[in-house]
């Protein structure tokens, strides 16, 4: 491993240990993606030979790729950690889905509202998440220990100054702290680390023939028969892969021939668009991530 990656790893392990040392009831968000895979790996390293002393929490919209769910269950078992899965059943019963509702409404209810429900129910005070500063402009300003007011709101003006490697996790009841151990990693670092450490990731990241349809100029995979095809529309088989993973109707695939980590690393280094390009939810409105974050989105 390069000296640079080794120091990123050491920093992340230090952050995860601080989160645990300063928390009453910590939890780690687990979204099954490559960043979650790296974060889980780092957590296991931080506490080896013990299992990490916190549960994993997955907010399941019920629209994830099927492969992701199978992978999630296997990883939780392998790590020896407790897996908590939460779905906003009330909204699901009300018929909220990613097809009839715009992505803003859908994400707001099935992800952000669901997340708050799960965090309130678990009474978690420190929530470890996989966000990175290079992902998006409003995230570049995020603290490693990010303060949330009651109701999980993020107010950029209330963030505590964060100097050196000293973190202030003191809170009053109802408030919480989100901790981002991958803050200083870039997408390229994540891939390089996955390669160096041989970390298992969901196969959807690798190119393979998959059934897709074109929507708004982007390839969307038809992962199950809930996908409403337009009249006359037939999914076609294309060799595609995903740069990020989320709800399958909202996650665009890219045409790619990268079937190994090395090929992905190479593709990432020459990529001309950011990985969030494939996330339909970020294009809703200008500064949309800043707004979502204020409401409590990760």
């Amino acid at each position: 491993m390069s000296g640079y990656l080794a120091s990123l790893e050491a920093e992340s392990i230090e952050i995860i240990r601080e989160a645990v040392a300063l928390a009453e009831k910590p939890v780690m968000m687990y979204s099954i993606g490559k960043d979650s895979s790296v974060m889980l790996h780092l957590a296991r390293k931080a506490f080896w030979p013990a299992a990490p002393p916190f549960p994993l929490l997955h907010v399941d919209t019920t629209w994830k790729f099927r492969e992701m769910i199978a992978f999630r269950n296997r990883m939780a078992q392998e790590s020896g950690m407790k897996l908590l899965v939460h779905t906003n059943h009330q909204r699901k019963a009300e018929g909220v889905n990613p097809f009839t509702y715009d992505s803003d409404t859908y994400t707001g209810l099935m992800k952000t509202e669901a997340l708050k429900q799960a965090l309130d129910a678990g009474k978690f005070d420190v929530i470890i998440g996989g966000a990175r500063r290079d992902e998006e402009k409003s995230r570049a300003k995020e603290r490693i220990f990010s303060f949330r007011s009651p109701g999980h709101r993020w107010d950029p003006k209330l963030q505590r100054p964060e100097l050196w490697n000293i973190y202030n996790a003191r809170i009053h009841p109802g408030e919480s702290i989100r901790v981002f151990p991958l803050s200083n990693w870039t997408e390229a670092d994540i891939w390089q680390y996955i390669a160096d450490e041989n970390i298992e990731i969901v196969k959807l990241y690798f190119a393979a023939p998959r059934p897709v349809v074109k929507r708004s100029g982007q390839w969307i995979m038809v992962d199950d028969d809930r996908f409403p095809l337009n009249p006359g529309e037939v999914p076609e088989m294309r060799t595609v892969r995903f740069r990020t993973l989320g709800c399958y109707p909202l996650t665009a695939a890219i045409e790619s021939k990268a079937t190994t980590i090395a090929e992905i690393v190479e593709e990432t280094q020459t990529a001309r668009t950011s990985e969030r390009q494939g996330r339909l939810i970020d294009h809703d409105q200008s500064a949309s991530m800043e707004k979502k974050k204020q409401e409590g989105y990760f």
Partner: protein
Amino acid sequence: MRDTLRFITCGSVDDGKSTLIGRLLWESKQVFEDHLSALERDSTRYGTQGEAIDLALLVDGLQSEREQSITIDVAYRFFATPRRRFVVADTPGHEQYTRNMATGASTSELAVLVVNGSKGLQTQTHRHARIVSLLGIKHLVMAINKMDLTGWDEVAFAKIVEDFQPVVRDLGFETFQPIPISALNGDNITELSSAAPWYKGPALLTYLEEIDATTGVPDLKFRMPVQLVNRPNHDFRGYCGRVASGKVGVGDRVRIVPGGMETKVRSIVAWKAELPSAGSGDSVTLCLEDEVDVSRGSVIVASSDPLELSEQFEARVLCLSDHHLVAGRSYLLNLHTCQAVATITAIKHQVDVRTGSHLAAKTLAMNDIGVVNISTDRPVPFEPYDRCRRLGSFILVDRLTNETIGAGMIDFSLRRAANIRWQAVDIHKAARARQKLQKPVCLWFTGLSASGKSTIANMLEKRLFAAGKHTYMLDGDNIRHGLNRDLGFTESDRVENIRRVTEVARLFVDAGLITIVSFISPYRAERDLARSRFEVGEFIEVYVDTPLEECERRDPKGLYAKARRGELTNFTGIDSEYEPPESAEIRLDTVNNTVEQCVEHILYKLEHGMASKPEAN
């Protein structure tokens, strides 16, 4: 040379910092197409460059700052060239956000100070140079920007550099490189521009790729602050932490600070494997040969190079909050993994960040830097900041709001703890208490003016006296006529007022007396500090809980009326806050109870040994 450089960019408003970083990202091809199309959209909407792309918008992320066209928070950027990786802390130039600059500087090795070549040195230039120096940065680049606006005037460039030389010397930077640039046009960024043939130095990015940004401070031997003890079962006990300095190998002799026990390293545990050694910056788990007392906040150090332990420091402190740092108030101090209760015992002086001269100061306001003495409630392990950032830096946290209120760097131990011995005495508190047949306590009455504190305290003392007890009453008004006649009603004077009374009450309790203190004492932090000076069970907080309207109705001295008319300022309850106790041992409701009933209640609790448990509010 390290393969990563962490640097901070700073400078005054409108010097073009954000444009410079946008330019560096652009030139190192870190700008993705979708970011670019967002940029094109935004440039027409918010940009200051007409139809051209405004590179500053690449980094000015938050909508609120785009609307104001200023950067209001520190942002971290990552870019790489084939030769090096860079982590950039982009920090604001606006004066009230200096704290964010200190934040960015705390993890940086080098500073790029951006100066507007067409305007010359500004107050902020000096301020920022001093702040980065205070935070331990030894390498400075001065990017003299907007040179295109000066027509690439060599004389103007030379004058700025010459005027700044004394500051460089004064602040002790190990390297200093001035570079004339135009971030807007990309001149002298990645390669030398033909616009300034007179400039013979390196281009900015070339310089950043090549500089050795380590410092000349000799390396310390092994030190690792313990983050947590990993004890999954009886067979394994490991100490987790990140090595702050030096190296450690299996079999090395180490010492635990505090405690001083010596043992050997049995193993260094990593993921599914063991390591023969570990070095500075590594996150590891150490197992030791012997069972020793180690917990979070302990430091494991090389036996051959001991670590200092002290409870009194001199430190440089930067105030980060709009709540002032006040001498005498207690804060939580986080120093590496160690937490203690700390008090600023004296503000020696404030540093004028423009000139470096010393100013007298009673408090430190937001963005003020001062040299202070700090005392902690127990000895903590440390290194001076200039020898080891990780073991010499701390933050101060407000005990009530939990806000990070200050950041500090330890200069040295005052060693008072070693020099001033307690005078050992044979007749001690317990002996005096036995002689008087009573348990000495401090009954601390707090409440608004006219709440009834003195009336109740007075009657309580009469009853205790009648019962043969030895008492003394310290009353707010009376003390202010004598011992505290030099103090007014500002926040810092109120803190000192309480501190003195606390110490007097403590001596009286030591003398065996039942001591009754009757002070408004509006701040929770001060009452908590007072409590911390007594033994457990000795301090009884009596909250005289009378609503403000009731106090105002009684108003025996006419003070509320005066305060309402604006003739009295800093009056508690009117224009100065009262923070009610959260868990007072005794709470008195004076609206529904008479003075006699209140006194009976206190006596009952004292006689039945129930006065040391909090009552529900």
